C-alpha cells in the first residue's frame, strides 16, 4: 500500500546504516535545524575543500526514518562534488518533494535520492525529507560567506 511505497528498501537501508553520521572537525560552518511540528532535529557541518569542492558533510540528529535517511543520502551525494553541483541537486530534490507526487524525478541529477519520490505524496512528511537538505543549503551559504 501507500506506506510500503514510501518506505523504499533504500530508505530503510540508509536509516539502519547511516552514511557519514557524526560531527567531524574541521568545518567551515555549522547549523542546527529543527522541525517544530515533530521535534526532528539535525546539526550539520560543512567543510569546503579546494576548487570549490565539498570536502565533508558531517551531521548528527534525531528523527524518523525519512529525515535520518535523507541526511545519509545527502552526505553521499554532496561529499566530493562542487558546491555548484550540490546546490543543483538540492534544488531538484526540493522540486521533487514539493511536487505533491506529480513531479517526474530527474534520476541523473538525484541518484539514490529518487527513492524519496513516494514521500512527496505525504505533505506531513515532506518536511522530514527536506530537513537536512535545507540545513545543508543554509550551511553552504554560511561557509561561503566566511
Amino acid at each position, binding site marked *: 500500500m501507500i506506506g510500503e511505497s514510501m518506505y523504499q528498501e533504500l530508505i530503510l537501508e540508509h536509516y539502519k546504516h547511516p552514511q557519514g553520521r557524526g560531527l567531524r572537525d574541521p568545518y567551515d560552518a555549522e547549523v542546527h535545524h529543527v522541525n517544530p511540528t*515533530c521535534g526532528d532535529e539535525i546539526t550539520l557541518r560543512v567543510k569546503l575543500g579546494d576548487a570549490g569542492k565539498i570536502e565533508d558533510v558531517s551531521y548528527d540528529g534525531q528523527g*524518523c526514518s525519512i529525515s535520518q535517511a535523507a541526511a545519509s543520502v545527502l552526505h553521499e551525494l554532496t561529499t566530493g562534488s562542487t558546491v555548484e553541483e550540490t546546490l543543483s541537486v538540492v534544488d531538484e530534490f526540493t522540486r521533487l518533494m514539493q511536487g505533491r507526487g506529480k513531479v517526474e524525478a530527474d534520476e541523473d541529477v538525484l541518484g539514490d535520492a529518487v527513492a524519496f519520490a513516494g514521500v512527496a505524496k505525504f505533505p506531513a512528511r515532506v518536511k522530514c525529507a527536506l530537513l537536512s537538505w535545507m540545513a545543508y543549503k543554509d550551511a553552504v551559504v554560511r561557509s561561503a560567506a566566511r
Partner: protein
Amino acid sequence: MTSTSLDVERIRKDFPVLSRELPGGRPLVYLDSGNSSQKPTAVVETVREHLAMHYSNVGRAMHALGAESTEAYESARDKVAEFIGAPSRDEVIFTKNASEALNLVAYSFGNPGNTDPRFTLGPGDEVVISEMEHHSNIVPWQFLVQRTGATLKWFGVTDDGRLDIADISGLITERTKIVSIAHQSNVLGTINPVADVLRRAREVGALVMLDASQSVPHHAVDMAALGADFVAFTGHKMVGPSGIGVLWGRAELLDAMPPFMGGGEMIEAVWMDHSTYAPVPHKFEAGTPPIVEAIGLGAAVDYLTGVGMEAIEAHERGLTAYALDALREVPTLRLIGPDSLDQRGATLSFTLDGIHPHDVGQLLDDEFGIAVRVGHHCARPLHLRFGIPATTRASFYLYNTTDEIDALVRGLHHVQKVFA
C-alpha cells in the same frame, strides 16, 4: 439515570464515522480520542437542526429566532453546569477551548486593573505547574511570569509517570499564588493526586486550577467534590464540537477577576472613555460566542449522561487493563506512564526500540487504518524528562473495543517486521 454497563456495539452505531472505510478498503480503527473524539449522531443532528431552523445571534436579537437561539445557548450552559456539578450555572464560562480558559485565568493575575490580593503578582511571588503539562498549561504561565517578574516552579515526574509530590511543601509555599496542573495527563494517562495538592495549597492560601481536558470526558467529575478553584476542559474531546471550551471557576473569584477580552455582550454600559462590565458569565464572553458549538456541547453532555459516566469509566478501565496486558507482549515496547490501573486513565504512550513514532504512526495508518497520535503530544518538556523526542499514543473512549486493541498489537508487530 446511570447504568454501569455499556453495550459497545450499540454505542458504535451512534457514531457514523466508525462504520466508514478508509481508501483502500481499510476499516477505521480510531485510537486517537485523547486528541479529539468522534461525534455521535445526536450531536451532529442537534447542530444541524439548530443551524437549519433556529439560528440567530444570542443575547441581543429581539425576535423569535434570537429568543430560540438564546434559549438553546443558555440551556447548554445549564446542561454543562449540571454535568460537572457546578454550584451555580453562572460559574460556567464558555470559551473557544481549554487553552483559552487557561489563558483567561493566567491573564487575571498581575493585571494592573486588578487590585484584589488573590490576583496580585510580582517579583517574589510564585506560580507552580508540573513537568507533565500540556503546552497550554505551561505557556500562559510563562507569559504571566515574564510579564510580572514572578517565578515559575514545577513538580517533577517520577520514573513511573506519577506527579512527584515528595517535596510538595518545599514547592508550594507562602509565596505561591496559584498551582495549575493537569487533572489527568494527556500523555501518561496518570490521574493526579488533586486532594494532596489542594491540601497543601490551602495551607498556604494558594489557588488551584486543574486542566481537566482529559478527565471530564472520561469519568464523572464534580466541581463541588473536587474542591479546586478553576477547572478548564474542552468540548471536542467529549463527543462535542470543536471551538467550544469551558472555564469553571468559583463565583467569588470570577467576580474578582478583570474581563479577559473586550467586546460586545461583555459590557454593562459603555462611554467613550470607560465601560462597566456585565456580571459573570457574560463578562468573559466578549463578541458573538460559538453558538452552535455550545449547543452541540449541550447535546454531547446529554449523550454522555444517557450512556452513563460510570459505565464509560468502567468500559475504559476494561480496555486499559486489556491494552496494558497486550502491549507487554510487544518486544522492546517501553510504556511511558503507569503500568497499573491505579489512578490512570485510558491513554497509553510508548516507544519501540529503533523505530521513530512517526514511522510507527504512518505504517499503522497506511496498512491498517489505525489512527494513533505520534509526536510529543504538545508535552515536549515531559518527553525531554524521559529522554525521548516523541512517543506513539493510543487513547481509548466509550466506542473502542478489545478487537481494536488486538489490531493495534498486530500493527505494531508488522511495523517491527518492516524495520527489522
